[in-house]
């Protein structure tokens, strides 16, 4: 145990040191602007973007929660693989257009874009609030990842968790987006090594892949639940597919994903990354299988916390020193996304609430310092969330987060291609989709965890009066409601000649690239 804790602590401290030094990395002339602090100078090339976005999307929570899903329910948990396979071809063209229009108009957040495109501060505010609400529980969940590791090492009490987050808060405050970008290198190197060793070494100890899957099958055969197993059944296939597609549609609507993309230096960097980022999807697929290895190794979770199965597996299979490295990988893996998410949430607050409603003539320096303080508030909020409220609540909220962030798709993603929608229609659609989504989630029970509400995202179609046992991803249905209402609302608003907002963008803004006269690189613009 002691060896594990020593190695974990040493690696953690080295990385924290890097976080503070990062403010000098790639020498900004002046870090007191949002483009520098919040977007790292918007000058990241292919490699840094790959590490940054990868470190951002594939979080510590993912690394403990996805195998925990396979451990508990089997094949349905593997949805993370098709989800992260389809997401890149799906968003490639969307993201390059977002990059272009953002660089022409000096936009930092998805809500900035909506403000410029549809001329509606209300719609932009809704998009900003959705983003903040969806991101907050996500940050809190990163702590759940660290907590699972600490529990396994036998470290109890809240103090270690508070210290870890205080360090994180301090260097994010100092270095902005440069800190997670630099730390992401270490985090990913550690994770790749740990996972490759795990998927090669552990199966040899457990009698090969065949017997690992046999053990999993045997476990699921014994449970009374009909939904588990190493394959999908007739009733959960639709859920599997819609959850993969819905999650893929949602991923790049999250403000922190957009932050990573906008920090890249041109369109080609983004396009190349769409081919390179799937490397992480392979890694995620292998990590998922750790859940079955845990079954075969006879690992049991600590208490009822199923998120501890992967740390428990490492503890059982690896020598102490390597288990320490593995735990550090998970712990540091939590810091990168937590930093980027808090920066993204802070940017939303500054750009779309502070500058829009509180201080309209804020200078660049004032915006940067408002963002820095907001990022502190967000992180303190996340820590309080975990310490004061049952962590299960954060998991519920994150589930809701995925469903509600999808409701910004019509204004943000479709808005990049068409200006056909009317701002009134989009607002109506957002309200309808939001209501439908939350209502559906509220009505999903999970008998296994004794939850009457917010039990999972699998909505039974029988609740709509259909004679079937099939389930579907609630977010997917909610998005359909949203789109239908937005469509009808637009038709009605247009025929009633309701005033529409002005569009500040031009067609060729969406295809501009680095080197164009209208694309300002590092120049800090106060336009829009």
């Amino acid at each position: 145990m002691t060896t594990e804790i020593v190695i974990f602590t040493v690696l953690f401290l080295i990385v924290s040191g890097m976080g503070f030094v990062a403010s000098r990395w790639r020498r900004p002339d002046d870090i007191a602007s949002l483009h520098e602090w919040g977007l790292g100078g918007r000058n990241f090339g292919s490699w840094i973007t790959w590490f940054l976005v990868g470190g951002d999307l594939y979080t510590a929570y993912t690394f403990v929660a996805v195998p925990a899903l396979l451990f508990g329910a089997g094949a349905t948990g593997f949805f993370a693989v098709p989800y992260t396979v389809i997401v890149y071809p799906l968003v490639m063209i969307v993201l390059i257009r977002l990059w272009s229009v953002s660089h022409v108009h000096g936009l930092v957040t998805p809500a900035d874009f909506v403000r410029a495109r549809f001329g509606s501060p209300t719609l932009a505010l809704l998009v900003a609030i959705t983003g903040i609400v969806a991101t907050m529980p996500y940050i809190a969940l990163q702590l759940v990842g660290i907590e699972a590791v600490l529990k396994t090492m036998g470290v109890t009490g809240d103090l270690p968790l508070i210290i870890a987050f205080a360090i994180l808060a301090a260097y994010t405050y100092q270095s902005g987006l440069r800190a997670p970008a630099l730390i992401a290198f270490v985090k990913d190197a550690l994770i790749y090594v740990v996972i490759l060793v795990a998927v090669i070494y552990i199966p040899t100890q457990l009698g090969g892949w065949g017997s690992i899957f046999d053990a999993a099958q045997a476990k699921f055969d014994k449970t009374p639940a009909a939904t588990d197993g190493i394959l999908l059944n007739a009733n959960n296939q639709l859920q599997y597919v819609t959850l993969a597609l819905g999650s893929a549609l949602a991923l790049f609507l999250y403000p922190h994903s957009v932050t990573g993309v906008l920090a890249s230096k041109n369109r080609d960097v983004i396009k190349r990354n769409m081919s390179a980022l799937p490397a992480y999807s392979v890694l995620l697929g292998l990590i998922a299988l750790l859940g079955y290895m845990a079954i075969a190794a006879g690992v049991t979770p600590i208490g009822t916390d199923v998120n501890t199965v992967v740390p428990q597996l490492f503890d059982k299979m690896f020598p102490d020193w390597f288990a320490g490295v593995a735990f550090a990988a998970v712990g540091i893996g939590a810091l990168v996304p937590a930093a980027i998410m808090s920066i993204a949430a802070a940017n939303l607050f500054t750009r779309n609430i502070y500058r829009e409603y509180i201080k309209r003539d804020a200078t660049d320096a004032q915006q940067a310092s408002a963002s820095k303080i907001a990022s502190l508030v967000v992180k303190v909020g996340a820590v309080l969330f975990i310490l004061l409220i049952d962590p299960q609540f954060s998991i519920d909220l994150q589930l809701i987060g995925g469903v509600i962030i999808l409701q910004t798709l019509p204004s943000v993603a479709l808005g990049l291609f068409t200006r056909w929608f009317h701002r009134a229609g989009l607002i109506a659609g957002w309200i309808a989709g939001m209501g439908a989504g939350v209502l559906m989630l509220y009505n999903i029970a999970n008998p296994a965890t004794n939850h009457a509400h917010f039990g999972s995202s699998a909505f039974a179609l029988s609740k709509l009066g259909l004679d079937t046992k099939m389930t579907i991803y609630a977010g997917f249905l909610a998005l359909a409601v949203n789109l239908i209402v937005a469509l009808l609302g637009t038709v009605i608003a247009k025929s009633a000649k309701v005033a529409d907002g002005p569009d500040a963008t031009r067609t060729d803004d969406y295809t501009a690239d680095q080197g164009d006269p209208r694309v300002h690189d590092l120049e800090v613009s106060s336009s829009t």
Partner: protein
Amino acid sequence: MTTPRTDRSPWNWLLLLPIAIPLIPALFNAVEPRLFGIPLFYWLQLSFVLVSVAATLVVYHMTRRAR
């Protein structure tokens, strides 16, 4: 200024392939044939990553702008 730029290209249709294939469970919801003892469900879905990488690479190269 030259002709207006556009993101339209027939090559973009290629991106539909890696989006559609992983969403058809009939293709992979089986145990046999296994690969190194791993059921089809798992190894085939992992290999779809290659389809995605290939499609995005082709589209990237075919839609590059001459500078």
